[in-house]
């Protein structure tokens, strides 16, 4: 077997660049060297583990004043800003490669911090088939989103939730195989996957023929003695159950951990740049659970804007759990909006699009799911715009908190007294409105490619094989 595989030519000389957007990053020697180092992920996780440890300590032992507590400022302002403004739009799920939450479980499971070991520790059970989707993560995110007014202002709640996630992740790693937690349970992973489809970076195979002839499938199964005799530096099979050689066509579940690159004996997997929102054109893999994630995310961005930025004190009281009846009412409104009202509105417009398009009628469910992906640019833009509204006014707290992370009166770097300084509040509308408009335009653009125009009009794009409908009505919904 190994002899036959060695006959496959290694595509070391990478294909010429197609367009300016597409760059094979592993074509640069320092990058290729770095990505093939087994310590790379550990080096990314360790600083985050340090910050995470301080966050947990600050959550449980620090001042209850959110604005003076490292846990609140560094998780919900600094980390969130980095995540939604930089990492996701430009780096896809790069955060997942450096996330400290599953690290402890993964290290126990692998019995190693850095090295590749062929045998793992734990029961390595398979996740139940019926739950191999995002539904658990969706409900996890919706639950956390429901409590966000408390979560993002009470340090002890932030500390408890993060510690709880570490414990759940560790147990999941010991009972189930690979990073089951990240794939099916993590409440953050679901939306990172959804919006990582927008990112201008991807991990993909280089040459389909090499993968077709490959006997090892090391990118999915992990390195073996035989595959290592051919090449590769020793890597685990994709922790998130993806099969890059199959091929993997979307970023949704790629954690950018680079294990597949390390495992591939033919150096046939690479990291490329590409145009934004490329994955939205990929039909394969679209599912109802992912579609629902789009509704949840867009709905939550709108609801947060109402609750946290709006002038309605009563709603803020409900969201802050000041009374049980208020909480129930808020839960009904919040969950009803993101889980029922948004999908129902989408269903109505999808149905109308289908009716008005006439001709052959596509499957309503498929159309419902397909059109949900048009909400991805708008949803991401909505979150970016919403995030600007609290990041710019509050990021100055980070300086004082850095010097006194626990609110104990320290002044480590002499910045404790740095006053609260809202940055560029007068520019907020000029940042937010264009961001939202850009998201709207991109959503409409994506949606307009997926259907045929109303009778009497011509489409500039060839009709998709799976569905013919009117995008115009859907555009109105967006």
């Amino acid at each position, binding site marked *: 077997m190994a002899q036959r595989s060695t006959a496959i030519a290694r595509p070391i000389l990478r294909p010429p660049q197609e367009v300016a957007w597409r760059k094979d990053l592993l074509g640069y020697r320092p990058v290729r060297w770095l990505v093939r180092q087994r310590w790379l992920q550990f080096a990314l996780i*360790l600083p985050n583990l340090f910050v995470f*440890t301080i966050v947990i300590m600050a959550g449980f032992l620090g001042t209850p*004043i959110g604005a003076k507590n490292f846990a609140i400022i560094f998780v919900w302002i600094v980390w969130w800003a980095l995540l939604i403004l930089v990492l996701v739009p430009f780096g896809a799920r790069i955060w997942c490669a450096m996330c400290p939450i599953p690290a402890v479980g993964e290290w126990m499971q692998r019995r190693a*911090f*850095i*090295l590749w070991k062929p045998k793992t520790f734990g029961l390595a059970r398979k996740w139940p088939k019926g739950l191999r989707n995002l539904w658990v993560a969706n409900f996890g995110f919706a639950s956390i989103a429901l409590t966000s007014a408390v979560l993002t202002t009470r340090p002890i709640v932030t500390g408890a939730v993060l510690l709880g996630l570490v414990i759940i992740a560790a147990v999941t790693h010991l009972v189930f195989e690979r990073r089951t937690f990240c794939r099916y349970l993590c409440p953050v992973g679901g939306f990172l996957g959804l919006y990582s489809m927008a990112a201008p970076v991807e991990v993909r195979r280089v040459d389909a023929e090499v993968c077709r002839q490959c006997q090892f499938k090391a990118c999915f199964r992990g390195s073996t003695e035989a595959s290592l005799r051919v090449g590769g530096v020793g890597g685990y099979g994709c922790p998130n159950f993806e099969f890059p050689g199959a091929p993997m066509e979307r970023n949704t579940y790629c954690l950018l951990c680079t294990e597949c690159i390390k495992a591939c004996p033919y150096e046939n997997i690479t990291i490329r740049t590409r145009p934004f929102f490329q994955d939205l054109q990929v039909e394969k893999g679209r599912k109802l659970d992912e579609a629902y994630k789009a509704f949840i995310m867009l709905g939550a961005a709108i609801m947060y804007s109402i609750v946290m930025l709006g002038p309605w004190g009563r709603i803020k009281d409900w969201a802050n759990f000041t009374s049980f009846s208020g909480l129930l009412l808020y839960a009904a409104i919040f969950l009803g909006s993101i889980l029922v009202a948004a999908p129902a509105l989408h269903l109505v417009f999808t149905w109308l699009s289908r009716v008005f398009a006439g001709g052959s009628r596509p499957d309503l469910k498929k159309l419902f799911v397909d059109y949900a992906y048009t909400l991805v640019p708008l949803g991401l833009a909505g979150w970016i715009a919403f995030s600007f509204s609290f990041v710019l006014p509050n990021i100055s707290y980070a300086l004082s908190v850095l010097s006194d992370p626990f609110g104990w009166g320290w002044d480590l770097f002499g910045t404790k007294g740095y006053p609260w300084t809202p940055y560029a509040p007068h520019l907020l509308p000029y940042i937010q409105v264009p961001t939202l408009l850009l998201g709207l335009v991109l959503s409409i653009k994506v949606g307009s490619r997926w259907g045929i125009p109303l009778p009497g009009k011509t489409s500039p794009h060839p009709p998709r094989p799976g569905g013919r409908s009117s995008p115009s009505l859907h555009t109105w919904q967006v």
Partner: protein
Amino acid sequence: MRRLEWTAFLLVLLTVVGIPVVILAYQFIYYPAVASASGEITIIARTHEAGGWLPSEIVVRRGEKVRLKVTSADVTHGLRIRGLKVKSGPITPGSYQIIEFVPQKTGTFPFYCTVICSPEHTEMQGEVIVEP
């Protein structure tokens, strides 16, 4: 290779155990010892409904310098010790105010919050006991 794993293990141990232990030891063992030697007393203010002053009773000695480090854990408070002519400015949540004074007379002196902070604001009281 084993050395690499051991190095990683030690780094993780240092991060999740070593650094927290150092921080906790500094804050809860070393700092109180130093503060106590210098006569510093930390007072945390909370609304009466949430527990009031912590501690609510402070014992000091006449003629010895007292250094109060006052902070608020919820809303803006203020501190005044009646009879000793001690008064702070507004103590905003999470900020610290250092108040230094030398009590010249013995006795029990009430202290209270000077900023209307909650419905039970007037109950937010404590005592400074000055011993001879």
